[in-house]
């Protein structure tokens, strides 16, 4: 089997060389072959199959190898990427005009015909079984009008189709077909700035080299991405100069790096850290009462957590979306820290002495989580809620999530608007629209459906603002903070930027 992959890799390289010779393309020459060493916390479990899962950790690697038609810009707006422009022709029709002169890493041209093949697969039965394919479920047909124009027809109005396309990576359709999904996952071919050379070298790193056909040639010819899940390992490797770009360090450690000339970048696409209430699964529990859920929210001192534990990097959350997300309601403020009000609400709900409850948490997903949990426990105890934290593995958590059967009354669940950057997606998750809902309020359904179909941007924004307010009243979760990953970049590197939650490594250059 290894031989097969080696052969496939060799075949890909030969194709590239032959095609380069044929096309007369002169790849960018790199004087310095020193690799750019990047530490991330995880690698995608499905290797180079970009349709199996959504978002990170896959995006950290996939966005170096592949490009989608659209992406989020620095303000969180959806802008064209492999597309040059897009427009809505009618409630169910979108037109995308594609960039000219783009080639895949094997030399084949990227155009509307190859893109159509990818979308045809995504909306096929097989594609629909993937997470990214499922995002395309409203698309009924994709047509290539000419080499540059793609027409999308949807079953029903889909105002966030361009947002959904941020996660549909343009794989090379012929390689996808010939290698099969599994073979392709080992030797992926895209239009990205880099070409995958090795999924795991003897240092445990994923190795990427410059794609000779890249429409955005990278500034550094070789990248090594290290999956360092252990925080101490990341920190020690960074301090010893073994890494150039490091993600997810603790906020209190950032000054050490700043003193050494490192620069700190924060993700602009933030998710909202929160604990969801499993109201559906615990109808007789105190959390079934909205006043109790509001009491939880009033009991927490978010400002102290934000400033004292996270050094101000994660502002208190006011709703289920961050300010740069479409649909965020700027009029809403975080719940004030008001223990008296919390006690009052508990008393009104019939729990003047408080009660005991339990929350399932996955540790290690964001910095200083244990300190945050301790502070939450302390704040809740002050109003009479005795909350125990139960650690679970991600595999256990995701199993309960998919089954919709939670063992505890609360569980950790972020309001995640990435990669679509639209407030509706997490709201749908906290609703009767989810297959096995943990929170289901029928009065919200009509608003959610309307927001999901409204094509007029202003009216849609107003609908989302209204929904944000309604969600705030119903308190389906204990809202905590707005959080985005932090990246630390070594001195001597310029151009680093994070977009759609992934670093744009092609922009990085070594400077004197």
């Amino acid at each position, binding site marked *: *089997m290894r031989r097969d992959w080696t052969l496939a890799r060799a075949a890909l390289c030969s194709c590239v060389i032959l095609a380069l010779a044929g096309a007369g393309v002169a790849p960018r020459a790199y004087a310095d072959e020193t690799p750019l060493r990047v530490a991330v916390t995880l690698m995608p479990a499905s290797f180079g199959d970009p349709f199996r899962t959504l978002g990170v950790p896959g995006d950290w690697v996939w966005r170096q190898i592949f490009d989608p038609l659209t992406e989020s810009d620095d303000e969180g707006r959806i802008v064209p990427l492999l597309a040059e422009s897009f427009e809505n022709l009618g409630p169910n029709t979108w037109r995308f005009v594609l960039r000219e002169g783009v080639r895949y890493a094997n030399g084949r041209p990227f155009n509307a015909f190859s893109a159509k093949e990818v979308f045809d697969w995504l909306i096929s039965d097989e594609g629909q079984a993937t997470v990214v394919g*499922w995002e395309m479920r409203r698309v009924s047909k994709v047509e290539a009008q000419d080499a540059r124009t793609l027409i999308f027809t949807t079953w029903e109005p889909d105002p966030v189709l361009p947002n959904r396309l941020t996660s549909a990576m343009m794989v090379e359709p012929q390689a996808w077909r010939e290698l099969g999904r599994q073979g392709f996952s080992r030797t992926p071919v895209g239009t990205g700035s880099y070409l995958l050379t090795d999924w795991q070298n003897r240092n445990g790193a994923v190795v990427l080299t410059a794609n000779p056909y890249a429409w955005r040639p990278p500034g550094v010819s070789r990248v090594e991405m290290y999956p360092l899940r252990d925080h101490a390992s990341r920190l020690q490797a960074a301090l010893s100069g073994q890494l150039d770009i490091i993600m997810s360090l603790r906020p209190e450690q950032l000054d050490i790096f700043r003193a050494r000339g490192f620069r700190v970048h924060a993700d602009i696409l933030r998710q909202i850290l929160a604990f969801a209430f499993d109201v559906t699964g615990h109808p007789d529990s105190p959390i079934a009462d909205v006043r109790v859920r509001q009491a939880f929210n009033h009991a927490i001192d978010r400002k102290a957590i934000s400033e004292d534990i996270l050094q101000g990097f994660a502002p208190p959350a006011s709703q289920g979306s961050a300010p740069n997300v479409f649909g965020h309601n700027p009029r809403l403020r975080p719940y004030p820290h008001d223990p008296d009000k919390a006690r009052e609400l508990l008393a009104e709900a019939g729990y003047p002495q408080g009660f005991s409850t339990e929350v399932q948490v996955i540790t290690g997903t964001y910095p200083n989580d244990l300190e945050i949990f301790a502070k939450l426990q302390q704040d809740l105890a002050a109003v009479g809620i005795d909350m125990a934290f139960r650690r679970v593995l991600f595999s256990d958590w995701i199993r309960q999530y998919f089954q919709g059967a939670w063992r505890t009354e609360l569980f950790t669940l972020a309001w995640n608007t990435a990669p679509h950057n639209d407030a509706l997606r997490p709201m749908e998750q906290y609703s009767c629209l989810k297959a096995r809902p943990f929170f289901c309020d029928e009065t919200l359904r009509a608003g959610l459906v309307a927001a999901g179909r409204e094509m007029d941007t202003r009216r849609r924004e107003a609908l989302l603002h209204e929904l944000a307010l309604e969600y705030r009243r119903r308190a389906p979760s204990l809202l905590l903070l707005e959080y985005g990953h932090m990246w630390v970049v070594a001195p001597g590197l310029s151009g680093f930027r994070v977009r759609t939650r992934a670093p744009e490594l092609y922009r990085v250059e070594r400077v004197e």
Partner: protein
Amino acid sequence: MILSGLAQRLARLAILLLGVNALLFVALGLAGDPALMLAGEDPTPELLERIRAEYGLDLPVWQRYLVQLGRMAQLDFGVSIYTGQPALFMALEQLPGTLLMAVLSMGLTLVTAIPAGVWIGHRPEAASRRFGAALTAVAQGIPGFVMALVLIQLFVVRLGWLPSLGYAQPAAWILPSISLGFFLAPKLCRVVSAGVAEAMQEDYIRTARANGASMRFILWREALPAALPAAVALIGTQFAFLVSGVVLIETLFLWPGIGLLLLHSAQNLDFPVLQAICFVVALLVFAVNNLADALLRLIDPRLRPATQ
């Protein structure tokens, strides 16, 4: 006789593999339905059904177990549910890293623990030896990963002498080997020193000394061999521990080995890969234990069958 011995061992191996397989089957069954992991968010019942059929998860439990047994007999563990790669290949691909770490740290353990054990066992009542014995007792209580963090802090972060990622450069082999060696050597040292100290009280040692044999000769040629059987048994156990994947050390040093793959597969409930890893590790442990047995018989004639 040789053939019957071999047959016995093969029968034991078969029982071991069956046992491991059955345990794993039950444990993984309790861990949950992998179809739910594969189907993603809000799967339709049809999609779940399709995935279960694809991976044979729709069969009755006994049938699934028999199918799995049949496949194991053909060394077919299926493909990883995430990567689609053959599970056994994924496990074998990680083996060189694990074996390299095992050999290096075992080598370091042997070259430090045996001389130290002989030195302490020679005159255990002497103050310096008692101090040495106390040190080994303390060292035995320090887990390998704690030592690893200290060593990285000192030699990688402070002094910048050594790398701490992977094993591409030989310099990167040093710290993981020391971390594991530091954990394993004290126990071996204590076993060797106890054996040597006991041997030093024996009549044949006294006779050798009376006959003018040098202390070096007495320690290395007479006392140490007496301590070896217990030491070899321990070395076998320690080596088996090393080849079964040292998850924490591999994680800290980003050392691509079986431990890292095991962690990753367990977190993702990648059942085929977990089964392949357990199969490979069970085989390795069996091989190492048998090698240790053979070595024991070689150095201790009392353990050989009477007819030999």
